[in-house]
Structure formats: C-alpha cells, structure tokens
C-alpha cells in the first residue's frame, strides 16, 4: 500500500529525539521518489538537519535533499548534496537517479579539471574525483578503453591516459597502436587547449618511442607535423635511415606534404649539421633531397603533365563569346585558362591565341603573365627558363615584368628555396624607390612572389625587405607587401610583427595598404586559436571597417577547422550586426573556414543567411559553402546554392557559381547528375547577351575551377593521411576571396589545388609501371567526356541511321573508342600509358545501356589502372594495390599521394615512367636520376 502523504514523517523531523529523526529520515529516503513534491516543502528543515554537525545521520539528510533537488530538476544542487552525502551515495546502485547524478558529476569534474589545468588554485572535491576514478575503473574493467581514454582526455588527465597506454603496450601491442591513433585523433578534434594538446602529443611520442619492437613511425611523423618539432624529426630520421630507409623516405614525403616550409628547412639544417649524418652516402643524400620537396613537386607535375585531360573546346568557346577588349572578360578567360591548366605545364592556349593575348592592357597583362606561373606551378627545374623572356631586364612592359615576378613565386610556391634570393634581391634593389609608377607595379609582383614562395618560412630578412617596401607608403606595392609579410610569417603569431603591422595600418592613409595589412595580420595568426583572441578583439573594436574586416578573417584563420563555438558565435554576430557590408560579407564567408572539418553543418548554419535581404550576406554564405565543402560533393550545400545561382543581384550569382564549381570539382555526371546541368548553366550564363558582366566573370572562373588542373586536382583543406589542416590550401582560399577587391589575387586559388594521384615509387624514387586494382564501376571515376567528342558522336549517329540497330551500336562503339584514343594526340605529347582507357571503355558502354542510375558500390571484379594515374578522393576506398610485385611500405596509409613501394622481385626488369625533370634533360644520359637535382641544391 503506497503512502499518500509524507506528512507524518516530516512531522517527526521536529522531534528532539535523534532516533526518531533517524527513523524519519530512513522512511523519507524510501518514499522520496514518490512524494518528493511534498517533501520539497520542508527542504529547509532537511538542510538545517544536515548543517547540524552533531547529528549523526546528516549525510542521509544530504542524500534526501539531493534526491529532492534531482526530482525538482535542479541538477546542480543535486550534485552538490550528493557529494556531501558521502558513503550514503552508492554508485553501484542501479537507478536512474544514480545514473543521472554520476554523469552530471563527470561533467562537473571534467569542467573543473580543465579549469584546474590553467589555474592551480582550483580545488576539486575529493569525493568528486573518487566518483570519477571509480567510473573510469568500471570502463577499464569492461575493457572499454576508448571510452576511458576519451573521458580522461577530456578532463585533462594525462596521467591516466599514459597509464592506460603503457599498460596496453605491455599486453597487446596492436591494440595499443590503434588506441594511440585514437588518442591522436581525439586530441586533434576535441581538445582546444593549446598547452594541453602539446603536452599530450609530447607524451605520445615518448610512449611511442618506448615501444621496442616495430614502433609505428608514421604516427610519430604525424605528431611531428603538429608539434613542428624539427629536432625530434632529425633524430628519428638519423636512426631510421640506417635501419629502414624506405620508411624514412615515406615519412619524408609525408612531411613534405603536410609540414611547413620552416619545419623542413630546420630538419635539413639539423641533419646537415650533424657530424654523424653522412650526407655523402646515397641514402642520406636521397633523404635530404626528398625533404627539399623537389621530388614531390617533380612527381606531382609529372602526374599532371601525363594525365592532362583538359577540354580546350570549352575554353575556346568561352574566349570567343567574351569580348577580349573588355579587361574584366580578358582577365576572366586568363584565370580560367590558368586554373584549367594549373600545374600541367601546358601553355599552348596562350601560344595559340597570341592576338587575343595582345589585347591585354595594364593589370590584365599582369594577370596574364602571372598565369604562366600557375600553369607551370611546381616546375622547379624549368620555371626560371620559361619566365626568362618576361622577367625584369627584358624589354617587356612593367606589368609583364611584375606579373612574371609573381609567376616566379607561384611556380616555387611553398618550395621557395631556389628563388627567394632572386626575388629578395629585386626587393632590396628597388624597395626604396617605390612610388614611381613602373617600379611600383614590379614591386607589387615581387612582393606577392616573395610571399607565395616564402610562405611560412618565418624568414626574418625577407620580412625586413618587405617592410621597407611597405614603409615607402605606396598604395600599389604597399598592399602587396602587407599581404606578403603575412604570408612569410604565416602562422607564426609573431607578436612584434603583428604590432608593427597594426601600428602602420592605423597610420597610413591608403585603404589598399590597410587591407593588405589586415589580411596579413590574419595570416600571421593562422592556427593560433585562443592566442589570437586579443588581436581579434582589438581589431574588431576598430572604427575602420577594413580593420574589422581583417578581424573577422583573423577569427577565420586562427580558428580554421576547429569548429569553435565561440568563434562561430562571434562571426554570426558580426554577420548580422556590423554596419559595413564588407565586414558582414566577410564574416559569413569566414564561417566556412571555421567549419572546414565540420563541413556537413555549414549548409544548416548559412541556410537562413542565404535568404538574407542583404546581397553581401548572400554572397558570403555562398562562398562559405564553397570554402568548407570544396571538393566534398555535399548535396545539401548544393541545395542551398541552387536558388542563389539565379539571384537578382549579379555578384551573388557570381559567388554562387564559383562556390558550386568548388563543390563539384572533379565530379562526373555518374557521381553527381547535377554536374551536367551545372555545366550547361555556366555556358548559358556566358552565352547570354543580357547577363551582367560580374556573373559572366564568375561563370568563366567556375569553368576553370570545375575542370582545374586538367581535371586532376581537387580542393582538399585537410591532409587525408595525417588529418592535419592543409595550410597552403586554406591560405590559398583566404587570399583568393580577396579577389573581390583585386583581380590578380585570383591566382592564389591555385595554391588550394591538390593533385589527386596515386604515385607509387621505388626506393630509387623511380616510378615503376604496374597496375593497380580499383574495385568499383569505372564510370564513376572517368573524366567527363570532352565537348568535341560529344559533337562528333552526334554526327556519327546520323551517319549510320540506315543500318540495322545492331550495326549502329557497333559502329558507335568503335567510333567512341577511336575518339578517345585520338584525343590525347591533340595534345603536344603522345603518351603511351593512355592505353588503359581503351579496354574498360567497351564494358562501360554496355553497362550504360543496362542501367543509368546505379549507386557507387564495391564490386568484386576490379578494373585496372596504371601507376601514376588519377584517383579521386571518393575512389581511394576502392583502390587496392595488387599483391604481386610491389608492396606499399606502410599498409595502413590511405591509397593516394606518393607511396613508397617495396620491390619484392628486384631481379626482374623494371619499366620506368620518366618524370618531367628527367624528360627535360634527355640530351645527356643520366645514370643516376637525382644526382642532377642534388647539384641544383648545391647552387643554393
């Protein structure tokens, strides 16, 4: 029989006899879950009882109070009293109350513990930590290690993390490694406190190094990138090169891919300084060579060159439709050409259209020359020669010279070792004479070139040279100098530099310079997270809207990829409340940077903003989607962009088209049926006579982006193999969006293009010819068909109309095959390894007839692709390296990028694909392919 009222027991509490009180409390404890609403009236009395030190059952009173508060929904008070109730609070009990309170306790503990990390004065209740540890022990007993690790990481208990990992290493090494990987991922994604992150990473390295048998060096390299720890890397390389040179090579390639220039530079310096490190020996010199980044560039450019699938028809059509005399259209075609051919070294479009090229004037000439840099990006061996006719000292105009200096920087982007000195010398010679018209233009180009080539080198002398240019206070060169200063010191958070730039930004009268400096400051704070907060707040408080503009970009870059709520909140606040349209546009756009890792939530966040009455906000939301979802094929993002592509305001259409093309980059109509429609939309926009110039500009650029790099590059802002942010890409995008003010900055987008290749190389750094399996239908990964072929196809069909259906099908098939084979011939160089296209093409046609809409899925029977061919990001899961002759040295690594292979049958004959660098020096026989590049180094 249930009790109707607790009144009798409550009355007993007023008695003087403690035994009566005790009886009352015990009874109340039994009925509190049912009659809490009545007991709550007397909670004062219970609290008094608890506060009475002489009362022996005061802990029971606390428990009852806790339960009442729990039922009232006041969990904070409930937790407080449950802690006070000591032993009466029984964790083992199976009840909803205990479950809830324990989880609240852990939340509280995590919170306090995080605070304690920063402020030692905070004392954590003993009871609380006991509960926490008991729960951890429970996880541990259940063998739920990941949970235990996660909780302890979140509450900054490094000691527990270490304990668990060490214990695992002793017992089960494989599991330990997977747990270490888990901790690494958690550290990157969850922990925002910089100091603690470094601490965890350091201790992880220590733990990894204690593993005696077969430590996983690739994890160590991952951590090194994040810690920017050159000494450690040097030490490890030194040991590895002797025992496991292949692993060292792979590690070096990974570092080149994801580490900053400064880190690589320091490692090389460390290794060279080390007496024990014998840089004469072939392995050691090879390692240093890899670290310089030359082979990486060489391999990438070889890939882009050999697999160039540019559809020149599209570009030609666009060029003919757009009036060349108007400089905006001229620039648009220039940029589209640059993007389409980025890194392919194919500059035939310029050569074939010299008359058109001649129409360029002033700054469009600058852009056109700089486009050469984009096209030859990474062509370290030839770059200088190609640009020679345009560089200062030649007879060209100042704009050509300036453009060529910028182009030089772009060719050596991120690998500036060989060119920085040249550019710096130009700065030193002319820096003080800024102001005169011609020198200014050249200085502009040189500054940008320095910035790109010297990105993240932290090079003090270069910085000083740029500062000289800045201080001559010329609008044209000053703007570039400000930007370049940021690029050189990228991500350093150098306080002195920030102060300098900020002070000058407030002194100068030129808006251009202020803008350049504002973005420069933002770049300086890349990845600094909360350390940048004081500058952010400072900038956001400024009266000048340009500095506030810089402020929101500082948020974007400092918190890039963190998904930090505080940052998002701030950006949203400025997106809707700032009086300046520029700041509002920028803050919406910047959301894209903050949400790089969490890109699926971007469409939800900007959806409402995309319906704003303010066109700038709409433009911003379009770009935010383009930035965060670039290369991701996210349907919900395209849904938001769809209405914006037919927006009444011209520049919104421009933004929406560019953003869509960034999302749809590299996709064919099988993966996303929208591609076809979108391409048509682009050409229609360009064709339409009544369309506004800005939208046409955007459409042209979009054509360039969607087919970028001969369709062999994509935009990835996160390194797939190390889960670190791809700094170069992010910076490229951040500067690209500044093209709103200054068209030539559009070229920066080329920094964001990453080749999507699978490049297997042997220990001699040669590319062997062999086949790779891809377990999926080929049509999902094909290059889109060229416009020209499509037209041919139509003719073919009409020609064979009279024949029977069978014959017609056969004829068409043959025709197709021929066309595909002919296609490469159009290009300057006939490449043999195109044969791979032939075989599967036939199957494909059949399949197409069978079923059109078929989801991408795994199939057992693979088709073959050659080494050194395109592997798009959504393809990597279906790739498997055949287990015949070549085996990858790191099996857990993803199947993309540069992969070092172990040759299991070294005796057999090896067929090798020559790289661009090797091709260019074919006159002389080369027994050792990389001795030459070694020589190059010595010139330095």
């Amino acid at each position, binding site marked *: *029989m*249930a009790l*109707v*009222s607790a009144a009798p027991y409550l009355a007993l509490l007023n008695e003087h006899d403690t035994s009566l009180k005790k009886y009352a409390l015990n009874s109340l404890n039994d009925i509190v*879950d*049912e*009659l*809490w*609403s*009545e007991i*709550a*009236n007397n909670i004062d009395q219970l609290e008094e009882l608890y506060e009475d030190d002489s009362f022996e059952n005061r802990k029971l009173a606390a428990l009852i109070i806790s339960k009442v508060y729990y*039922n*009232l*929904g006041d969990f904070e008070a409930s937790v407080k009293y449950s802690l006070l109730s000591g032993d009466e609070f029984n964790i083992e009990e199976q009840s*909803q109350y205990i479950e*809830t309170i324990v989880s609240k306790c852990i939340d509280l503990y995590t919170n306090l513990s995080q605070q304690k990390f920063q402020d030692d004065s905070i004392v954590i209740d003993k009871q609380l930590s006991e509960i926490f540890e008991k729960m951890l022990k429970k996880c541990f007993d259940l063998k739920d290690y990941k949970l235990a690790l996660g909780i302890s990481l979140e509450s900054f208990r490094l000691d527990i993390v270490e304990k668990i990992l060490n214990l695992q290493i002793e017992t089960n090494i494989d599991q330990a490694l997977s747990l270490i990987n888990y901790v690494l991922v958690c550290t990157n994604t969850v922990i925002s406190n910089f100091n603690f992150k470094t601490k965890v990473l350091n201790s992880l390295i220590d733990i990894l190094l204690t593993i005696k048998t077969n430590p996983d060096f690739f994890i160590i390299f991952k951590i090194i990138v994040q810690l920017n720890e050159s000494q450690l890397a040097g030490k490890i390389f030194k040991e590895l090169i002797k025992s496991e040179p292949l692993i060292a090579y792979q590690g070096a390639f990974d570092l080149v891919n994801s580490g900053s220039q400064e880190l690589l530079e320091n490692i090389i310096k460390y290794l060279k300084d080390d007496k024990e490190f014998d840089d004469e020996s072939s392995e050691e010199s090879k390692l240093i060579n890899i670290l310089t980044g030359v082979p990486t560039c060489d391999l990438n450019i070889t890939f882009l060159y050999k697999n160039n699938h540019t559809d020149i028809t599209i570009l030609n059509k666009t060029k003919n439709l757009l009036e060349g005399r108007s400089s905006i259209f001229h620039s648009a075609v220039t940029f589209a050409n640059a993007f389409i051919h980025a890194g392919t070294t194919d500059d035939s479009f310029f050569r074939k259209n010299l008359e058109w090229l001649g129409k360029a004037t002033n700054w469009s000439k600058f852009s056109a020359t700089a486009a050469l840099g984009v096209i030859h990006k990474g062509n370290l061996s030839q770059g200088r020669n190609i640009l020679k006719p345009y560089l200062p000292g030649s007879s060209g105009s100042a704009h050509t010279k300036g453009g060529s200096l910028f182009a030089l920087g772009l060719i050596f982007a991120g690998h500036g070792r060989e060119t920085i000195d040249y550019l710096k010398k130009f700065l030193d010679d002319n820096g003080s004479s800024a102001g005169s018209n011609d020198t200014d233009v050249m200085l502009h180009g040189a500054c940008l070139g320095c910035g790109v080539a010297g990105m993240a080198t932290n090079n003090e002398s270069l910085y000083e040279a740029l500062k000289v240019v800045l201080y001559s206070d010329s609008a044209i060169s000053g703007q570039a100098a400000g930007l370049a200063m940021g690029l050189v010191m990228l991500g350093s958070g150098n306080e002195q530099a920030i102060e300098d730039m900020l002070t000058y930004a407030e002194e100068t009268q030129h808006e251009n310079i202020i803008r350049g400096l504002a973005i420069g400051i933002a770049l300086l704070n890349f990845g600094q997270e909360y350390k940048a907060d004081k500058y952010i707040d400072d900038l956001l408080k400024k009266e000048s809207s340009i500095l506030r503009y810089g402020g929101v970009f500082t948020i974007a870059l400092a918190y890039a990829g963190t998904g930090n709520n505080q940052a998002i909140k701030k950006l949203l606040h400025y997106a809707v409340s700032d009086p300046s349209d520029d700041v509002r546009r920028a803050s919406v756009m910047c959301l894209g940077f903050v949400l790089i890792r969490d890109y699926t939530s971007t469409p939800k966040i900007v959806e409402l903003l995309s*319906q704003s009455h303010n066109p700038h906000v709409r433009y911003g939301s379009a770009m935010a989607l383009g930035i965060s979802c670039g290369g991701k094929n996210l349907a919900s993002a395209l*849904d938001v962009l*769809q*209405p914006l592509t037919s927006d009444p305001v011209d520049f919104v259409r421009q933004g929406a088209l560019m953003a869509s093309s960034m999302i749809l980059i590299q996709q064919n109509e099988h993966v996303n049926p929208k591609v076809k429609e979108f391409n048509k939309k682009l050409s229609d926009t360009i064709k339409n006579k009544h369309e506004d110039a800005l939208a046409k500009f955007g459409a042209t650029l979009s054509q360039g982006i969607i087919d970028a790099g001969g369709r062999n590059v994509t935009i990835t802002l996160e390194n797939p193999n190390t889960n670190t942010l791809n700094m170069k890409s992010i910076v490229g995008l951040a500067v690209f969006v500044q093209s709103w003010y200054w068209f030539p900055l559009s070229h920066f987008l080329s920094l964001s293009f990453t080749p999507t290749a699978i490049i297997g190389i042997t220990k001699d750094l040669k590319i062997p010819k062999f086949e790779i399996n891809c377990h999926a239908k080929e049509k999902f990964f094909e290059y889109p068909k060229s416009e020209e072929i499509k037209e041919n196809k139509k003719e073919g069909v009409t020609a064979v109309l009279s024949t029977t259906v069978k014959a017609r099908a056969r004829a068409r098939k043959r025709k197709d095959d021929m066309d595909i084979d002919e296609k490469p011939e159009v290009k300057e160089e006939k490449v043999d390894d195109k044969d791979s296209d032939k075989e599967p093409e036939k199957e494909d046609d059949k399949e197409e007839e069978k079923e059109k809409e078929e989801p991408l899925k795994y199939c057992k029977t693979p088709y073959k692709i050659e080494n050194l061919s395109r592997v798009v990001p959504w393809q990597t899961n279906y790739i498997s390296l055949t287990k015949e002759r070549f085996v990858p040295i790191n099996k857990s690594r993803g199947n993309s990028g540069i992969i070092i292979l172990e040759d299991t049958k070294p005796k057999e004959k090896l067929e090798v694909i020559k790289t661009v660098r090797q091709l260019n020096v074919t006159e002389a026989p080369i027994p050792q392919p990389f001795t030459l590049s070694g020589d190059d180094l010595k010139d330095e």
Partner: protein
Amino acid sequence: MEVKEIESSFELLAKASNTFDNRYISKVLRGVGTLRKKLSQDKSILESIISKVYGTSRPYLNQFGLINESMDVDKDEISPEVDLYIHLLVQIYYLDNKQYDELNSFNDEVIKLMQVYNRRTLDLIQAKIWFYISRTKELIDDLLTIRPVLTTFLKISSLRHDNETMGCIITLLLRNYILTKDINQAINLIEKIQFPECSNSVSCRYYYYLAKIHAIQLNYSIANEYCITAIRKSPQTKLSLGFLQSATKLNIIIELLMGDIPELKIFKTNQWNFEPYLMVTKAVKNGDLKLFDHAIKTYRTDFINDDNLSLILRLHQNVIKTGIRLISLSYSKISLKDICIKLNLDSEQSTEYIIAKSIRDNVIEASINNEKGFMKSKELLDIYSTKLPQSEFDSRINFCLELYNDLVKSMRYPSENLKVNEEIDDDELELIKALQDGDLDGLMD
C-alpha cells in the same frame, strides 16, 4: 479490411521512425478513433494482426495469437513504434469489452516494454498508453498503487525530454489526486513542476485540472483564467464534446463564485443539459435563496456526478451577497429587518453580520446604522470616473494579443525553398491536409 487499414498504418509508423517525423504518428493515432468501434466488436482483427506480427513470441498475447499457428511469421525485428501501437490497440479492445482484470495485468507487461524503449517517435503513443493504464486503474478503483509508477515514469520522461508523455502523466497524476481528493498533493505537484510544451489535447486537460484545483483552493480568478484557456484550447470536434461540457460547467461555477453572472447564451446550446446550472445561476442572479435550495435539492445527483457539489454549495454565500447588492441598489435606505425577511435569513443579527462582511468585501457601498437598525446605501459612483473600465479594457487587450501570439506560434509556414516543396510527396500533402482538418481528438471518457 480493418486488418489492411492497420497494416497500412504500420507503414506510416515505419516512415515516422525513419524520418523522425511525429506527424505521421499523430495521423495514425487519429485513425484509432474510427477504428475503435470495429476493433472492439470483432476480436478476429486483433487476432490476425497479432499472429502475423508476433506469432507466439509474446506469451501474454496468446489469447489473441493462437488461432493459426501454422502461419508464417515475419522474423523481422518489430519496430518499437509498431510494437507499442499494437499494445495500444489491445488496451482499447480490453477496455471497450470491459475486461478490466485482463487489461490490468496486460498493462504491467506494457509498462515493462516501455521501460526498454527510448525513442522520441514513441512519445505520442506512450502518452496514449499511459492514459489507458491510468484509466484502467480508475475503473477498477485502485488509484493509489499506480502513483509510484506514474512518478517514476514522470521522471524518466522528463530526463528523456519526452514532453508528450511527461505532460500526459502530469495530467493523469492530477486527475488521480483530484479523484482521491488529495488536493494538497496536487498543489504540491503543480507548484514544483514545469508543464512541458506538448500537444493541445493534453495541455487543455492540464488547464482544466489546474482550474479545478485552484477553484477548490479559493483562487477563483486564477481558476477562471485557466478554465477559459482550457475551453479555448480544447479541440472543437465531436469527440471532445464531453470535455468541453464539463469545462464549461466548471467555468459557470467559477464565474458565479467570482460574483459574475455568465451570459445566457452559454446555456442555450441544445446539445448539453445545462438545466441544473441554469437554475443555480438564476438563483444567484436574483439572490433568491429559496430557488437556490430548491435547485440543489432537485439536481443534487447531477452535481455529484459532475463532482461539482462542493463548489456549488459555496455559492450559498454568493446568493445572499447578490441579494444584498440588489437591495442596496434598489433602496437607498432599508431596515435590517426588511432585509432579513426579503432574504429569508435566520435573524436580524446575522443579517447585520452578513451586510458588514459584504461592505468589507466591497460588494456593496453602504453603511449600517446600528442604533436605528437600517442600512444606508451610498450614492452610486460614476463608473467611468474610476480606473475600472481602463483595467477591464487592458485585460481584454491582453487577452487578444495573447490569442494572436499563440496563433502565430502554432502556424506552420510553407518553406520558401522551391526545392523542398517539390519534395513533398503525396503522403505529406495528405498528412498536412489531415492536420489542417483539426487537432488531435480530445479522447475524453
């Protein structure tokens, strides 16, 4: 035929669990009303459904499931939505066939089942199931044992943010307390709990109980507010007539207790028998104690059935007060004795006390002359010189604004995005249409 109907509702339930769209569930539940009659008359409907879905996997359902064991049973996992929905149907079957004992033991199984499931799509069904569980206990007159279970699940549902169930359980608890006359416990509960936002039918019931509790607690003006909200919120369909009727009755009493006289048109609706209340109102209006006593005598059983007798009895005072007011309006000066005769009071002295109390309560503006034994009314004030009309006006404006805000809040706007509109398939259109036809039925017993 009905079996097919039920099976088609399974599809909707599956859709709801896939899309997390509770609207499909509410559509299914709306269908229960029409299904109910056929269901309770024909046992074979449930039998075939249960044997199809469960086979013999649920022993406590064997009563239904044993007819054709040979039938192939789908071994697929039964989705929680379908599972609970069938249980709800079984409950209704038992209830309509008055098999209370079976229902009671069946309920225990359902409670066990609900403890296992934790899905937000189940909220609506769970709320309904709780309603029937509590109703069962009421019918077998076992109100106390259900309370601990209800409080436990109240907490569980509040932790799970299951607003619908939480709201439903709160109303059930309140009803339970009121039925056992534990008004203090009810007050304790409503003071400490925050009523969640949940469906209309549940919240209007909640307001009705609040009105009742506050009326009993002498907070007439608050009670009146709640009562009006309850009436206003209640769905205007046939199924909710019963609720509307009892709420209106309560409202009449509360208005009378507040000293107002309800409008005549309330009583004139033909559907309901408001005769007892009309009589009482007349008595109060005229201040006629005789008529009042007569009304209570004749309609006593009606009032007891409506559980309003205790409130009605309180009106005795009001009748007298109205009488006094009428007298004070019509006479500027009258002897206490005359009043005593007119109002059928016991003695002159008690008349004096009553008048004094009325003066103090601001019912009348008058003074008593003790020596000469008469009451002198004060001159009537010009009501428009006071703040009274202003405050009345203010309260009306507030009411209108609140109504408007509620309306705006409860509207569903079509998405501006063309794309989304295209995606809305026929099902969805039908659903929206069904929802526009009216809110969930009240389902008052």
